């Protein structure tokens, strides 16, 4: 009896794979109904139904019955820190190029099954297998864009054509700057004609010295506040992403944009699937859905960043169809892409950035030192730093002394009174 039962059971078990194999793909998708998909993306980086646009996540849920749990981050590094620290698991994540490279190296990403992403056909060859993902197995491009210089035509007389405008003392107190090391250093590196992905420490130190030099114009370091400040006409110049410039310009027509001649950063943000994704099939469905022409167009119009999707940028109805800024001619200006830096350079970059943030400039500009080509990168930082330290040290010292004197005075008085 027992034997018969086990034979019966094994027969069933051996059939199971066949049953699944014969099941149609749609059943496969149906089985995902009611599951959850965890998506981690940049803030303001998906069409969310505002102003009659398409609500992408809602549309996805309606189509496939998969609930989308959507969270946002505001920079690659904080996203990386969160994922590394564990505790949360996402299925789909949309980081930038160099971060994807790092995550591939650290084995944080899962290979994508491109059979499940038929819409990958809309991504042209030039956006495939880029430097950060040379085998093209881990990522599907989501946006492509450039950094450039935004300026307020009311405050800037002559259109700038160089990053050096950000060092111009004429615009002191009126300059905004990236508040993250990678983008800030890239600007200095462009001016110095360096590679963004330089692996030599002295080069980074020189770039840091140039960034310290910028402190003379008292730049304000901003992230998202750039929108508020540029739209209000609070600042004359700001380096930022072209896509964001387009949305700022809608609110302040005085703004204009230029790609500085020294070259700019070209970046790709791409959708990836994380290692250990609990719902990989749904993640692929989602990535595929993002590349549906309609959805990709809605996203491209909402985010205002360039789209790597042919069906979008070749569509005459697309709001930014053949936009000169978003889709410039190839080779119109120098571009560089970020790649992953070695841990030593990353550590150096973060200490240098701390130095830059805390640097207090001396009165005179040493800018010519850099532009002359002979950039030894030595500034009199020690002296200035100590003078400020001394100032605050003195204040605190006086305060503590006053407190002490008061306590001693009271103590002495108490003694005296007791005696009397």
């Amino acid at each position: 009896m027992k034997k018969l039962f086990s034979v019966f059971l094994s027969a069933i078990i051996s059939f199971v794979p066949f049953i699944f194999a014969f099941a149609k793909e749609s059943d496969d998708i149906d089985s995902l109904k009611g599951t959850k998909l965890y998506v981690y993306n940049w803030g303001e980086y998906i069409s969310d139904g505002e102003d009659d646009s398409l609500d992408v996540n809602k549309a996805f849920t309606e189509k496939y019955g998969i609930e989308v749990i959507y969270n946002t981050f505001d920079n690659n590094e904080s996203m990386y820190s969160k994922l590394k620290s564990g505790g949360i698991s996402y299925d789909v994540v949309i980081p930038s190029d160099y971060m994807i490279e790092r995550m591939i190296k650290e084995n944080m990403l899962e290979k994508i099954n491109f059979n499940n992403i038929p819409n990958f056909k809309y991504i042209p060859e030039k956006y495939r297998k880029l430097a950060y993902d040379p085998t093209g197995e881990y990522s599907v491009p989501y946006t492509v864009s450039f950094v450039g210089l935004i300026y307020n035509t009311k405050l800037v007389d002559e259109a700038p054509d160089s990053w050096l405008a950000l060092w111009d003392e004429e615009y002191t107190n009126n300059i905004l700057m990236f508040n993250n090391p990678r983008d800030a250093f890239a600007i200095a590196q462009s001016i110095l004609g360096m590679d963004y992905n330089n692996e030599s420490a002295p080069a980074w130190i020189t770039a840091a010295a140039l960034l310290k030099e910028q402190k003379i114009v008292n730049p304000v370091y901003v992230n998202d506040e750039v929108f508020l400040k540029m739209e209000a006409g609070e600042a004359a110049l700001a380096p930022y992403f072209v896509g964001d410039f387009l949305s700022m310009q809608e609110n302040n027509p005085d703004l204009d944009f230029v790609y500085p001649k020294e070259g700019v950063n070209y970046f790709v943000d791409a959708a990836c699937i994380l290692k250990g994704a609990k719902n990989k099939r749904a993640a692929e469905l989602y990535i595929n859905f993002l590349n549906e022409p309609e959805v990709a167009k809605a996203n491209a119009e909402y985010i205002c960043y360039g789209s790597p999707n042919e069906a979008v940028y070749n569509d005459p109805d697309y709001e930014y169809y053949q936009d000169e800024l978003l889709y410039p001619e190839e080779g119109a200006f120098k571009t560089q892409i970020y790649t992953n830096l070695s841990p030593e350079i990353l550590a150096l970059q973060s200490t240098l950035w701390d130095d830059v943030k805390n640097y207090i400039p001396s009165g005179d500009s040493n800018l010519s030192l850099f532009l002359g080509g002979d950039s030894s990168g030595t500034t009199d930082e020690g002296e200035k730093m100590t003078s400020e330290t001394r100032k605050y040290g003195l204040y605190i010292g006086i305060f503590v002394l006053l407190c002490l004197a008061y306590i001693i005075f009271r103590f002495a008085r108490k003694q005296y009174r007791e005696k009397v």
Partner: protein
Amino acid sequence: MRNQSALRSKLVSSPYILWAILFIIAPMIFVVYYSFTTASGDFTLDNIKFLSKYLPTFLRSIWFGIVATLICLLIAFPTSYIISQKSDKMQRTLILLVMLPMWMSFLIRTYSWMAILQDTGLINSFLIKIGIDPVHMINTGGAVILGMVYNFLPYMIMPIYSVMAKLDFSMIEACQDLGGNKINVIRRCIIPLSMPGIVSGITMVFVPSVSTFYISQKLGGGSFDLIGDVIERQFQQSYNYNLGASLSLVLMILILVCMAVMNRFSGDEGEMVI
């Protein structure tokens, strides 16, 4: 019988003890552990050695904290006294008004100060309208201190008020009967009696002021760092938990020392007369 009640009290306090171990003691141990290790987990003192670089930042934060605390104290003491002298109903309303801004997110409030203070902001556009030269306020140390005072003032008012509300009025009367004029009543009676509130108010304002990072980023324009900014950056951007932890450790020790000194100071207060 006695044993049983001891056991019962242990059982009653166990959730708190568990909470304290999980969320207070364990994180502290992690902070100490990270401060003395490298990324790969080996013992090192480099993180601590590295700290000397951040001395200016520490000093700046402490100074800003001291200034903000003193201003808060100067505003909060009279305010609390005035509130405590009102009728019960009035007191409740006024305290509600003090608390009201705290119903909104701290981040939003700070962000809106940016819109108020900036060169094209509310204050300056008003000044321009009435024909006065605009004042540059945003992205200065003053704006950061203003942000601290604004955000942390309720933490100063609340403890001082709660002590003053319970103040035995007969003490004040006694003081007056003994011939004290107004200044003497305040100096020799009200201030010493409300000292516990003042001390806890000072710690409650000083600690968050020293460690804040959001206020300095938004209102200070990120052009100078406070120590909170550096710590935040180590965790958020550089992924250097070790340096971040050692900075936090020093900050924690510093704050503990300040609190110990303050407590010692206030302990004497009961016996001493100003």
